Each structure stands twice: as structure tokens, then as C-alpha cells.
């Protein structure tokens, strides 16, 4: 699962080998899961 760092905005891969997750680039602890882009529903108006 892809995550990104809330400080440096770089994408981070997390493995379950070590406890605690940190950004390997800046060391920040807050990471957010990368979500797919907003889904737009197309509706025919009739």
C-alpha cells in the first residue's frame, strides 16, 4: 500500500518488518494513505 509523507509529500512504502513508521527522507511520522482521485459520476439528465 502506498503512503505519502505529510511534510515532504514524497511517496513512501511501508513494510511490516519494523515497528513504527517514519518517512525515510525527512523522518516525519505522519503518513497518509494515497487515495484514488475523486470519482465523478456522469448522469444523463432525463
Amino acid at each position: 500500500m502506498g503512503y505519502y509523507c505529510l511534510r515532504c509529500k514524497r511517496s513512501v512504502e511501508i513494510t511490516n518488518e519494523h515497528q513504527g513508521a517514519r518517512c525515510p527522507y525527512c523522518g516525519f511520522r505522519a503518513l497518509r494513505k494515497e487515495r484514488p482521485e475523486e470519482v465523478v459520476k456522469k448522469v444523463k439528465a432525463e
Partner: protein
Amino acid sequence: MEVKIIDQRENEVKFVFSGVNVRFANALRRAMIAEVPKLAIDEVNIHENTSLLYDEQLALRLALIPLKADLGDYSVDDRSTLTLKAISPERAGYTMVYSKELISSDSGVKAAFENIPIVKLIATEREIAGVRTIARQTIALEAIARLGTGKEHAKWQPVTTCGYKIMSSEEARSDLSNKKSVTFTVEGDGSVPVDEIVTEAARIMRKKCESMVDGVKSIK
């Protein structure tokens, strides 16, 4: 053929058509209903809709809002985009979203009436273990309007009431030439001026007749 206007208002006209065949009057009525083009919302891109209405219901409501535009600037393939973004209040209660909140990309396009209700957005407040939460409903969408005619869908019908009554005067009864007087009542939905609806319908009829004549000539 003689035309006499009896009553004319902003969105309604009443006129007497004398010396016409009833079939001609009916053809004009049908042309006004089904052939005169107007702009209406045809497709809606819904980004967010947490209101009580389904996406499809919301789209249909939007489609039925008459849009005012200068039709001379539009061709069949032209599109106009209208955006709508609204959120319920910060406190418990509701807010009504009206047609005036539709923002068009083209300054010439706007809702014919500003006070057509679209949807009610409700905000509900509750407190659980001392924590107050508020759930707000939002809508964010992009509506695409295009030109169309009433024969495709009723949303492209520029008239609400459009009918005629055959005048039953002594003069009309004694007329053996089958020519009569009819009283037309045309009520527009506000998207196209009523006088323009009548003239455009007549123009369409003439065009159809001309193309038919050309077709017949080409057979010979």
C-alpha cells in the same frame, strides 16, 4: 390570412389567426411544441451529492430548469457548462438551493427564473458523550447544457401551454371554403420570448415545405 394580437404579456401571447385552415393551425402548434430549439441541461457530472435526492433525480430537476440564452449564438453541437456548489448550514437546520445558484461558464446563459427550488440541504446536530457533531449535506456538480428540440425530450419544449380554439362565429360557420378563425394561446417557459417561438415555428414550417418542394422537384 390575418393575425390579430389580443393579449401579450412577458411570457404569454393570445392571438387570432383568421382565414386559415385548421390543419395549418395544428401544424404551427406542433412546430412550436416540438421543433423550436432551446437550451437545456443534458448531462450532469456529479462530484459530490450527499443530499436526500438520488443523482438521477437531481439531474432531472436540473434538466427541467428553463435556461435563458441568445439562441443565435448557439449551434447544434455547442455546449455550455453550469456549475453548482452548495452546503447545508453550520448549525442544525436547512438551506434551500435555488436556480440562481447555477453559475454558467457563458455569461449569456442563466436560469430564466431565479427562484426555482432544486434541493434542500439539511444539517443535523447531535451530541454523544459531550461531543457535539454536525452532519452537513453538500452538492457539487457540473451540468452540461446543449440545444435540443421538444421531439427529443420535453425538457427542450419552449412552451408550457400551446393550443388553439376554433372560433364558432356565424361568419365562421357560413364560410364554405374551409377557412376558419382560430384563437391561439401560447405560454412560454421563460427560456425563449413567446413572439420568437411563434416566428421561429413559422420559419421552421416554411423551411420544411421548401425542402419538400425541392425533393418533389428532384424526383421529376
